[in-house]
């Protein structure tokens, strides 16, 4: 490649993007490894349960977003790809949230478990 070709290659935004992605990917992989380590440490911290669950959800969401936007190229692709994937993701998340709310309610407790939760005296009387 001549000097003029090198210069044109450097100024070509598509080619320079492909060149720069290598280090972006390496840096993101290191970041993901660090976040995984943080998640591991988090579960052993003596804090309130809701706080730890919140931190874990946020950390895994950050990892999720880094992978889909960088490794899966959504950041550089047309918005339609993002919309298409997020339709599935939102439907899945909505279904999960609804099911967990539904089955998390007291009325959804299995009868055997509800019975076991009652005080012994109440169980004997009933």
């Amino acid at each position, binding site marked *: 490649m001549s000097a003029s070709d090198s210069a044109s290659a450097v100024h070509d935004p598509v080619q320079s993007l492909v*060149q720069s992605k290598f280090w972006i*990917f390496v840096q993101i992989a290191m970041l993901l490894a660090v976040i995984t380590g943080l998640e591991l440490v988090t579960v052993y911290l003596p804090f309130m349960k809701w706080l730890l669950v919140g931190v*874990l959800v946020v950390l*895994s969401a950050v990892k999720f977003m880094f992978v889909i936007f960088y490794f899966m190229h959504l950041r550089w692709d047309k918005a339609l790809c993002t919309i298409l994937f997020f339709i599935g993701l939102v439907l*899945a998340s909505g279904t999960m949230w609804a099911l967990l709310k539904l089955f998390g309610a007291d009325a959804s407790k299995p009868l055997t*478990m509800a019975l076991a939760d009652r005080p012994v005296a109440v169980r004997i009387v009933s």
Partner: protein
Amino acid sequence: MSSQAAAATLDHHHDPTTSTGIPNKKLLMWAFLASDCMFFGCLISTHLIYRLHPPPGTPIARQVFSIELTSFSTFILLMSSLMMALAVNAIQKGNLKSMRWSLLTTIFFGCIFLGCQVFEFNTFVHEKHLTITNSILGTTFFTLTGTHGLHVLIGVIWLSGMLLYSFTGNLTQKDAIDVESMGLYWHFVDIVWIVIFTAVYLLEYI
């Protein structure tokens, strides 16, 4: 300009020949992954629902799981995702040799992950006495992680096929979309594991 440098200016993110501007293979893969999201969403929900109200006699998950092994598997899968991204980057630059090494490393990491899963299942069944039929925890756990493992196995077979195909001489920079679509599938397997690692394993330790 040399042919390699000219080819390097190909824009792999936009395809002017389709009405959407997105290569059809990529669009198909994203639609499939969106549907697979809902599939795994249901499996994860089922597991979590039964963990909310474990029936009497359910084994204590914390005593069954090995967080060290699972963390190692997670790290391996993350690194395989990096190698897959580098493989796609290499074929987009027309560097076939680099793509082959990256694919080979991805396959290697995928096999390590599968090996860890086989070891984990074997330990659970024979040492912890947790099987797919003897408790709800076993049923939902093995169904969820087994389905994910099956996805990894399919990915490893696909990667191996692509690696062998690259030696026929028919895989060029213009076919980068084939490797990219395969990469999307592999990264999806990784993001599903990111959710499973938190929802199924880590939450048990809080």
